[in-house]
């Protein structure tokens, strides 16, 4: 087990290097730092001095991958690639355009993001699986049919409308909770209710339908027939046998997402004004803060890879047949 995990971590390194190369190409090769400077400072009437100053402030004034003016190993160290891209492996993300340390920002903004993402994830998992089980229990009846129709209709609504509609109904019309905002401690509860509810509802259509197909697939298997032949009641078959066996495919989809929860939800956070990583990313995109976007891309793929490893470990927990060697 431990061997396997260590090996997986070593496999992750080339992938992270790949991600790093992609971001490096996107941010520094497709467009030179000069282009970025011009974009930031305004394309018209920008002096070369202003560009040089802009580049110096951000440390973009070095050669991309090879510095001919330096000696020895410094030929590679004194470059943009080493300072900006390779440094990310040490979680050294540098500074944002407003001069703040990105790593520090990420640490402080992680909690608000998790405060929404975790409840959405776990509540969603429980509620969606419950709905799917109800639909499977009443399969081939009108409840099942209209349930599927309802799911497809829910799937067809853009997540933007859920948020806009929810804010309008619950906050503006009924004045139950504040429209947006955030505070520390227990006070945060009233700000979190609405985003969590909307998060659960907006994911309901797709996940419920997906869980339903998984359950239905399990229902067709031999052990279910055996269980019924033994005379077990349908509820017991469903909750004891089918639910347990369906956990494996459900876990594949669910566990991968857990580490990504740190990143928060881009849209929900910006609509509800929650100072998490999602709104941080959106602000960075809007103000074209390339350093932050680069850091978030790296962090995102890092967390995704952790998610993949966690998925494999969780397999062994739910299915004793699977052994990781």
């Amino acid at each position, binding site marked *: 087990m431990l061997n396997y995990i260590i090996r997986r971590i070593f496999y992750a390194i*080339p*992938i992270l290097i*790949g*991600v790093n190369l*992609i*971001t490096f190409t*996107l*941010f520094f090769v*497709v*467009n030179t730092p000069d*282009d*970025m400077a*011009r*974009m930031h400072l305004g*394309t018209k009437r920008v002096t070369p001095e202003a560009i040089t100053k802009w580049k110096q402030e951000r440390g973009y004034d070095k050669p991309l991958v090879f510095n001919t003016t330096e000696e020895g190993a410094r030929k590679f160290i004194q470059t943009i690639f080493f300072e900006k891209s390779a440094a990310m492996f040490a979680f050294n993300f540098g500074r944002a355009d407003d001069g703040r340390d990105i790593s520090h920002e990420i640490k402080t903004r992680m909690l608000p993001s998790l405060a929404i993402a975790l409840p959405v994830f776990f509540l969603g998992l429980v509620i969606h699986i419950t709905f799917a089980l109800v639909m499977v229990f009443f399969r081939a009846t009108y409840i099942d049919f209209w349930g599927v129709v309802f799911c*497809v*209709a829910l*799937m*067809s*609504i*853009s*997540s*933007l*409308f859920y948020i*806009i509609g929810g*804010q*309008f109904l619950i906050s*503006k019309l009924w004045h139950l909770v504040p429209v947006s905002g955030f505070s520390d401690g227990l006070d945060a509860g009233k700000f979190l209710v609405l985003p969590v509810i909307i998060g659960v509802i907006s994911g309901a259509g797709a996940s419920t339908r997906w869980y339903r197909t998984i359950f239905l697939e399990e229902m067709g298997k031999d052990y279910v027939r055996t269980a019924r032949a033994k005379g077990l009641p349908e509820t017991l078959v469903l909750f004891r046998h089918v639910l347990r066996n369906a956990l494996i495919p459900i876990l594949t989809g669910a566990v991968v997402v857990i580490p*990504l929860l740190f*990143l928060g939800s*881009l*849209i929900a956070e910006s609509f509800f004004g929650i100072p998490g990583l999602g709104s941080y*990313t*959106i602000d960075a*995109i*809007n103000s*074209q803060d*390339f350093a932050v*976007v*680069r850091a*978030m*891309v790296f962090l*995102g*793929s890092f967390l*995704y*890879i952790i998610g*993949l490893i966690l998925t494999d470990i969780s397999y062994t927990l739910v299915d004793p047949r699977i052994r990781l060697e």
Partner: protein
Amino acid sequence: MPFKLVILWTDALIYLLLVLVIFFVWFVRHNEHLLVPWRRVGHSVSGMMALTVLTIFITIGLLDTVHFRPAIENNSSTYSKVYGVQVLSLFDVIATPLRTSVEKTYSAPFAAHLYTKETIELSGGSQIREFPRLKFGGAHLYDPETQLVADVIWRTVVGIGFGIFIWCVFVASIVMLIAYRCGKKFKQTFFAIFYNETEIPWRAIFIMLALILVLLGSALVLSSYYHIFGTDKVGQDVFYQSLKSIRTGLVIGTLTTLIMLPFALLLGIMAGYFRGWIDDVIQYIYTTLSSIPSVLLIAAAVLMMQVYMESHPEFFDTIAARADLRLLFLCIILGVTSWTSLCRLLRGEALKLREMEYIQAAHAFGVSHWRIISRHILPNVMHIVLIATVMDFSGLVLAEAVLSYVGVGVDPSMISFGTMINAARMEMAREPMVWWALLSSFSFMFTLVLSANLFADAVQDAFNPRVKTLTFVDRKFAPR
């Protein structure tokens, strides 16, 4: 009117897609075994109803794809024609009254007055603050307070009548066509459809069509006198914007798949078929790409594309060309982030297929690799490709809205569901609230995505080999 045809990048790709679809239809019609699953799609009630709606959307989208630049009328003696910088489409020409009837600012649906008060100078020199009349909406009315409701109802009735008339003509011609093809009498065919005894669920299609035509008919009649979905901040007709958004949605939904398909097909099959180091390299590429959260990758790529376009303004001569190029880039970027899942599926399928006996036999006969791939493997993975294509469509339309909201979507000058929602979201906070732009974009987008989802379900049910429930339905009225 003299004009210069403009073929934008996305237009060219849509034409290519159209040619491919026509070729595909022709090919399927001549191969009985390919036709079987499509027949199953044709028998699905919800699928065919969804297809009816989609056809209307696609027609509007295609009309909006034929672009040209009208000539500027100049009275000078020079004979050289000068073409305007404004790029119009065939749809714009049809919807000229909608496009040109621009008010000053917000106005509610079916309103005859503006939504905001303005200072109006009376003839005597005194000033009053009042809601001024609209320039176009309800301008034909003498006294809107008393006449408006009656006028709207009367025109709705006319529109419905118009829609029903078209529907009758359409239904009669289709029934005649079916009767001719089956060699039955008109009356016989009609009652077969009426009692839902036909193979293709014509009754459901006709009911759907009646609904569409009634809505469309009344909308057409009313929209030439009123702004039926109101106007936005700069006075643009919201109904016109919603119709224009359809093309953007369709382009994103279809071209993204068209662009990514060659990569996914080639790499996926190669990885599964050749295995070894080729498999390792391809797996590495798609694992790396898919490990970056897609929104972030798209955001990073679009940001960089913005910088690139900013520093190379020589690539486009009109605003439309610029917006179009950005749309194409967005499709490419979405394609790069979304090909990985299809590639993984195809790899798995190719791995399975290469062990099949018929492929082993082909090997033994010394058939070359490329021939095995193109003759034996490719046709056997096409159903996966087809299912993935139709399943992706609705997701991509939804993604466009979110991306445009985040600020990494289509060009702000391009009308799309995303830009409409983005603009309208601020209006909800206004007092009094402006709700019609959101309602309009919501209903159009919901209809498009819902019908795409239902059609995708029908296709998946018909093509998915895992669900082989060949229910035999006794249809008395099969075509000869």
